[in-house]
């Protein structure tokens, strides 16, 4: 845990800075991360990091600078040095053409509602045992890979505006196992997420993969010819599409700068199908809940799309300052995006029983945006993808590319699952900062454009 002494000396430096008339934001980020990686049915890497970062941002009139330090932070002097460097850089900066909005912690917050001691201190041996059990129960004739990241994050932030302090402590994990057939080359995946050690169970993985293995074992790959298809998108794919549509459609910055697929619309316009509702909800327990953002604002339930209608755009404080808007609590790396569920059957196969031939694409690999302004995305199927006929799993499908738009895919959804799932969207580039999105466990979209396919998985 962040040493109480470090938080005390951070406050001391804040007090010094405030008394000297410096305008600054000081934040500590402490992570204890563990990751076990699996390759060729072996543990290929077992790694732990214990790192503390200090971020200081200084505003000097219209001039700003930031300094991040990752090293030994034990003394007032270290923090003071980082502050002095930021002050010096801010002095030498070029002034902006607008007035920055100062950071200010609205009210002190102490949150650790999603902290689990058992996960924070999870013995790597537990992970090794779980993988061993999965390998032995699913069989030696596959090649297994995967990773299991777990750890804790603490964030503590203060500003020179007042002595309020926000503090957050949480745990998170993302478990992945990939099973590859050595001869036929197909790959199946199972992931689990959560903030408690007990959110993971070997049985869930065995059940999920056990359901798919026979279909993959018994049937050859199916090549999908380009054209329009009815597609069941599984929760991973739904989260990828929803997330990208949010980041390219509902951020104030992209909208103001006419780079977003909603730039020709305004709040109140219908931009997606009537059955689509999306929000940023810091209180949804299927996301990693952060009650404040890094400008010190309290985060609140924030409607983005209601029944297809654009409700609000998200403004971080620098975009708000630049375009004369109010910040909306979105100076954050961990939003809680939620897509509402519908009334579809729990099982996607039942939902498409009368639809004839449909594709089941549970995840999209390597999504990108050939045209952000038009909302066009592209990505390909990879794991667990199936051809379904009359609600029955028929065969696995080869790597298949979808190139379509958010408006078309989220404008032609005929079924939305009544069950929600948490999909972990965290990456481990740089600092640990967990992100999860809550989405329906599947959606069925009509007229989805398949633009290419391979002869292999």
């Amino acid at each position, binding site marked *: 845990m962040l040493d109480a002494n470090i938080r005390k000396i951070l406050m001391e430096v804040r007090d010094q800075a405030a008394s000297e008339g410096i305008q600054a934001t000081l934040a500590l980020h402490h992570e204890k991360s563990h990751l076990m990686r699996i*390759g060729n049915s072996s543990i290929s890497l077992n*790694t732990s990091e214990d790192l503390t970062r200090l971020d200081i941002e200084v505003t000097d009139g219209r001039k700003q600078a930031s300094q991040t330090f990752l090293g030994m932070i034990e003394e007032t002097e270290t923090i003071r040095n980082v502050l002095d460097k930021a002050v010096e850089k801010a002095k030498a900066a070029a002034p902006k*053409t607008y007035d920055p909005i100062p950071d200010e912690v609205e009210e002190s917050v102490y949150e650790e509602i999603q902290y689990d001691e058992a996960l924070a201190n999870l013995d790597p041996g537990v992970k090794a045992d779980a993988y061993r059990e999965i390998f032995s129960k699913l069989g030696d004739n596959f*090649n297994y890979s995967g990773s299991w990241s777990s750890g804790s994050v603490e964030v503590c932030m203060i500003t020179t505006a007042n002595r309020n302090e926000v503090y957050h402590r949480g745990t998170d994990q993302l478990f992945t196992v990939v099973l590859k057939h050595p001869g036929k080359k197909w*790959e199946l995946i199972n992931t689990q997420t959560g903030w408690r050690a007990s959110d993971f169970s070997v049985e869930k993985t065995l059940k999920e993969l056990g359901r798919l293995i026979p279909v993959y074992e018994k049937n050859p790959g199916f090549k999908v010819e380009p054209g329009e298809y009815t597609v069941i998108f599984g929760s991973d794919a739904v989260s990828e599409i929803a997330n990208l549509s949010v980041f390219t459609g509902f951020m104030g910055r992209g909208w103001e700068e006419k780079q977003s697929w909603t730039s020709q619309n305004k709040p109140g316009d219908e931009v997606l199908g009537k059955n689509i509702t999306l929000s940023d909800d810091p209180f949804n327990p299927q996301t990693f809940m952060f009650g404040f953002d890094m400008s010190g604002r309290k985060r609140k339930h924030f409607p983005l799309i209601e029944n297809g209608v654009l409700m609000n755009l998200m403004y971080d404080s620098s975009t708000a300052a630049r375009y004369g808007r109010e910040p909306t609590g979105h100076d954050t790396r961990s939003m809680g995006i939620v897509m509402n569920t519908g009334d579809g059957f729990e099982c996607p196969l039942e939902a498409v029983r009368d639809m004839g031939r449909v594709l089941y694409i549970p995840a999209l690999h*390597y999504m990108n945006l050939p045209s952000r302004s038009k909302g066009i995305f592209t990505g390909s199927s990879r794991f667990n993808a199936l051809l379904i006929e009359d609600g029955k799993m028929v065969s696995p499908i080869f790597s298949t590319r979808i190139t379509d738009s958010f408006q078309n895919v989220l404008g032609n959804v005929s079924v939305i699952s009544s069950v929600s799932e948490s999909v972990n969207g965290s990456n481990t580039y740089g600092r640990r900062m967990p992100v999860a999105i809550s989405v329906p466990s599947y959606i069925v979209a009509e007229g989805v454009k398949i633009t290419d396919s391979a002869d292999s998985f």
Partner: protein
Amino acid sequence: MTDSAAVKKEISKNISRISLDGAGYVDARFYQDDSSETILLYDGDLEANDTTVESGIGVRVLWGGAWGFAATSDLSSLRSCFDKALLNAKTASELVKVPLFMGDRDPITGSYSSPVAVDPFTVSLEDKLGFLTRLDADLVDDFILKRIVYANFQKKKIHFQNSDGSEINKDLVNVFGMMMVMSLDSDGEMQRRSMSLYSTGDGTSGWKMITEPVLFAEHSSRIKSELKGLIKADTLEYGRKSVILLPGQGHLQVHETIGHPLELDRILGYELSYAGGSFVNLDSFGKLRYGSDKLFASSYGGILNSPGSFGYDDDGTPERDYLLIDRGILVNALTSRAMVNEANEKAKREVFSQSGGVARATSFYRAPIDRMTNVNILPGDDGSLEDIISSTEDGIVVDNPVSWSIGSNREHFHFGCEIAWEVKNGEKTRILRNPTYQGHTLEFYNSLSAVGDKSTWRVELVDNCGKGEPNQVMQIGHGVPVVKFDDVIIGERK
């Protein structure tokens, strides 16, 4: 403990201790300084003025054929960091089907410094802003809606030691620069044209590089005039034509469909749960026709000033120049010590004679993995860009990526670019907007029909290659000439 000589002595002691304990291999990377400075002007406003400074040590221990890794900034607890790495390796060794081994090596003592005439960290912020603000002013024009000018300076001072007895010191400096102009086209869609700092392959990589007009600043007027044409242009129609890639696009094509599929850890299946695998297997080497006779691809390429040039990799192997693809035939991969040993053992023959020196970690708190270095296409004998255009009947020339999406085994791809020029009967005619092209890797490289000469070759710098778990961003370079491919699917089906 802040005295670096004392830290190094302590590292030696701990490496000996863990080796004597029975570890198969031990190394430590001590980052005395890892600094990065980012400056971003958005419509002239200084939107990013950020510096990050990191320091610490990363320790890797191989025990019973499995890796354990631990990292800390706390140099007073070096011993416990080594112990943690050892403990992690011991836990990992309980589940090993394919044991990893590094092999014996003679110790190497060496050092490498990026060729730098002026260290960018000695240049004042005022001078940096002066240069970038002048560049931004050059981008101003009535029709331009948005301007971006970006620079990033990196410096790493790394001390490496391993249980071979090797000791290597590296002082690495990287510089990246980018400028972009944007405007709305007739459909209200934002179009952009950009230019990134590139290298000619020699010269320095410090401040002098970014301020060298031909490598960066002097392209401002060109991208403006190209954008002016682009916003009035027609959309590229769907079809099959020749595609001529300028290096601004060609380097990413090479990166995604030669570089990544030839990283040996991907081939051996160590990236399956994240980045993906490769359509290449161990039987492919020496046999697989990857491309036409015109295709020669190399690793490193003896390029002096590129982020993919670093002297020694993080296994302690000197970086070396070798061919990956020779006259269209796949001959080698991007390799590191443990991966070479595993591949040869698995194939029951010597597929690779030695490590290619590509093991690299992005920071002290990440463990090395196989990363492409400079993966290059060698210049050919089909003349200049003009020569290649004049020999093209029906095609397009494309530049700079907007979007890239590649199949998980790198077997197929889809790219979107900033701009295309139509080529008809040997003449460059009109500009076309929203160009995309797609293909299947082997079919595509086998349609390579022209490779430009040295006058068309340049080293493009990449600062954002992502791979590995925990995730790592890496900096590399690609030396590429102008290249032409025939019968490629372009545009999107209606």
